[in-house]
């Protein structure tokens, strides 16, 4: 119905409110294949809600979301078909505690994508291997450290070979030492050409991997541009104010 045919994802005029509280106001965003878009901004600026809207976890109040040239904000679209092409990782890991790491990773491939058990396990194991989690495959999530759990959650999201990966402040619950091990995976995925939209508080990381940075403030994208521009010469006063507080001087 809308959207430029080339873009992987395009959002225009997106609005979302909870009751009287407007959380997203006229948000527009375009994601091309292999883009890494970093959403920055203070807590409550709407970063997480935007990601949840992209994955159709929230019913939007206005605007259009198009994915692979098809409007997915149309109520007639089956959200499961969309979600099976989009991966998402949450701040609190959200691994299923009653399943082993391997079973966490093979659940969706087997039940949603109809992959055989052997095939799903061999793919999961090779990904776990690549991210240094091979020896933890048989463990339950609560037996692992936060960093290991978050890496496992990333593997779980990658197991379905998504075309777009949404990361919602995935290092916010980790101590600084563990942040690096998680971000190095994201960096590797970015270099491999994975398209990602990332809500993050890690400015150094955003500067490094982002192809484009969006600064959100009170539900609006106030400023968007390549990291070199946003971090060194932001045009908006509000952006400068935010960056002064979060960037080491």
């Amino acid at each position, binding site marked *: 119905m809308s959207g430029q045919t080339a873009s992987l994802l395009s959002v225009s005029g997106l609005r979302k409110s909870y009751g009287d509280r407007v959380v997203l106001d006229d948000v527009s965003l375009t994601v091309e294949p292999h883009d890494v878009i970093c959403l920055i901004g203070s807590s409550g600026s709407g970063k997480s809600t935007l990601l949840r809207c992209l994955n159709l976890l929230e019913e939007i109040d*206005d605007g259009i979301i198009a994915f692979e040239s098809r409007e997915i*904000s149309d109520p007639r679209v089956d959200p499961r078909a969309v979600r099976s092409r989009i991966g998402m990782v949450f701040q609190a890991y959200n691994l299923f505690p009653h399943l082993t790491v391997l079973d966490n990773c093979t659940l969706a491939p087997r039940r949603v994508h109809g992959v055989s058990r052997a095939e799903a396990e061999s793919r999961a194991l090779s990904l776990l291997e690549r991210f240094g989690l091979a020896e933890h495959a048989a463990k339950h999530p609560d037996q692992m450290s936060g960093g290991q759990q978050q890496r496992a959650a990333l593997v779980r999201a990658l197991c379905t070979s998504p075309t777009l990966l949404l990361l919602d402040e995935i290092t916010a619950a980790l101590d600084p030492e563990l942040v690096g091990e998680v971000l190095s995976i994201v960096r590797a995925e970015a270099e491999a050409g994975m398209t990602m939209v990332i809500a993050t508080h890690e400015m150094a990381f955003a500067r490094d991997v982002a192809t484009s940075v969006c600064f959100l403030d009170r539900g609006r994208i106030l400023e968007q541009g390549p990291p070199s521009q946003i971090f060194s010469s932001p045009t908006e006063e509000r952006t400068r104010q935010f960056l002064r507080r979060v960037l080491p001087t």
Partner: protein
Amino acid sequence: MSDWSPSQHELDRRRVRSRLRTRSAAIATAMTVGVFVAIGFAVTQSPGWETVKENFLSWPDAKASFPDIRDAIWLNIKMFLIAEAFILVIAMLIAMARVSRSPWLMPLRVTAVVYTDVVRGIPTILLVYLFAFGMPALQLQGLSNSPFFWATAALIVSYSAYVAEVFRSGIESVHPSQWSSAQALGLSRGQALRHVIVPQAVRRVVPPLLNDFVSLQKDTALASAAGVFEAVATARDYTLYNFNFTPYLVVAGFFIAMTVPLARLCDWLTARMRRRELAGAL
């Protein structure tokens, strides 16, 4: 925010959403009507339907037995209300005894474990027999010998064991970090239990608790076995004199009328608690 008005696209989408909602409502209605009509048809076409109608669905018998059953059901309600109050208190005490850690309370813990194991193992109707016929034989001073008193006591004993386990599962489902943070604030284990753990536990177990209380309401009928002339006994009395079973359906109707408001009340309470705690959260 006040200058926003939905775009044409959004208006179209709302129309689609409402059309989809109407469609689901239509499917739900058609399915429900279809299934119940089919069941009704199957039942009324059965070969014995005429006999059943005569023996179980006789309007004159329903009318004739109604006043007596209505008067007798008050005995069930009274028994239920008295028993429920005692059960909640006793069950909570047993559950708290079972999760206590103090070495001084070891005998209490042992008693609580044995109590739940033994009592839950005995069929409720046996407890009613044992209490109603055995206890008066002890010739205890100062206690009533009425079947109503002992039947109610039997229900209290039986159900407090079940409900204690429900409470205990609720207490154990509260995350250990809640214990830690309560103790870190300097609360004693007892205080933590009383002010932090139990309030959260009770909320979680409202649905299984309701289950047990609905079951208790129905089990007040067991008192008829001990000679209490409550609603089921009254209905049986009528059927024995008039050779018609319709009063049983009348009693069933009364029991349903008792349990449904309780179920709705619990649903409402649970929904209200959820709304308050999750207000504004995702």
